[in-house]
């Protein structure tokens, strides 16, 4: 049995979460945007990796 409704619901929930997050989160400071590549940027990586404690 194919469950297209389930897949549509999944993608709708994900899109809804991202939209709600964009509305609720702090506004971005475009001037504080990181450079395109971390390599050579002299800026350490942020806090978000699975290996973090």
């Amino acid at each position, binding site marked *: 049995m194919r469950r297209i409704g389930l897949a549509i619901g999944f993608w709708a929930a994900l899109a809804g979460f991202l939209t709600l997050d964009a509305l609720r989160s702090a506004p971005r400071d475009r001037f504080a945007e990181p450079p395109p590549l971390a390599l050579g940027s002299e800026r350490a990586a942020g806090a*978000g990796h699975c290996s973090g404690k």
Partner: protein
Amino acid sequence: MGSVAQPRSATGPVSRLAPWLVVPAAWLAVTWVAGVRQGLLALVGLGFGAVLAATAFGFTTGWRVWLRQRDPTGLLAQFLAIGLAMLATVPLLASHPELSGAVAPLSWSLLLGAFVFGAAMQVADGCGSGTLYKAGLGHPASIAAFPGLVIGSFLGAAHQDWWLSWGSLPGVSLIEALGAGGAIAVQGMALAVIGALAWRARRATGSRWRGRGVWIGAILLAVLGVANLVIAGQPWGIVYGPGLWGAKLVTWLGADLSGNAFWGTEARMAQIAAPVLDDVTTITDVGLLAGALLVAARRGTACPDVGAVTGRQWIAAIVAGLVLGYSSRLAFGCNVGAYFSGISSGSLHGWVWFAAAFAGSTLGIRMRERLGMRG
């Protein structure tokens, strides 16, 4: 990760075309809103999803097929991907202090978490990346497991401090201990020896992976993994993203995480307050989902017919997702963050994770058989 054979679906031309219109538009919007780095990482994530889905490169299946049928193809492809990624990752980490490797403590929580994760990924028929890409493809079990992955990853991180109090040793970077050359030599040798043993124990049965696809997939995953490091400054990871989504959701519901040892740090509180697409793990996770969907749309294999799913199997998938998320945070990552990225970063915890999760998979396969799951 999941089954190789993807049953054809009967989706029409409109539903096949829709992702090819929506995904590029969404990518442009993300790049415009979140910046060039996030746009590049979204492309890397798209690549991960497309490669995983198109080549049926599977961590979970690779292990299961070797354990059940002694077909070493999937396992050897994983070693190829990790080894190739290591060849570039280790010298980059050794020479560029602005880049961070996936190095984590050697703790009791690592052993327990990886063992449980290895068992759960066989029941869920998907590890961290597998659950994501198969959810993107529309597999019911992976979609059912997904909310559990979010909740479990959030809770596991929130409780990580307590689990670490059981005892841990500092992380061991083989790059620091042996130098870049030494780390590559020792790890390359270890991969070669384990690969040779797996090959020697093979049985003369036809492999479920035919042709060069899985090997090309391994090479592409290694290239994308290195690109992730160069762009994001840290290796490829999966489960931190869903955990952050969970932290955001509970914060929206009024919870105060400032007192939590994990989520309450200044950097993570700032991440919870910031747009989620600013997080490098989230952006590659979302890209991975979309990449898998694009491949499915191209092939007409979205929402495959997987047959009747019993109530017991639905419950098993939901619980397995929760366990996957929770255990992955105790183990400092899943098959991607700890196994692929840990070993390619020269971290000893990646090897401990591999051994413990592989042992857990033997138990998970038995549980899978008891639940009457196919494949």
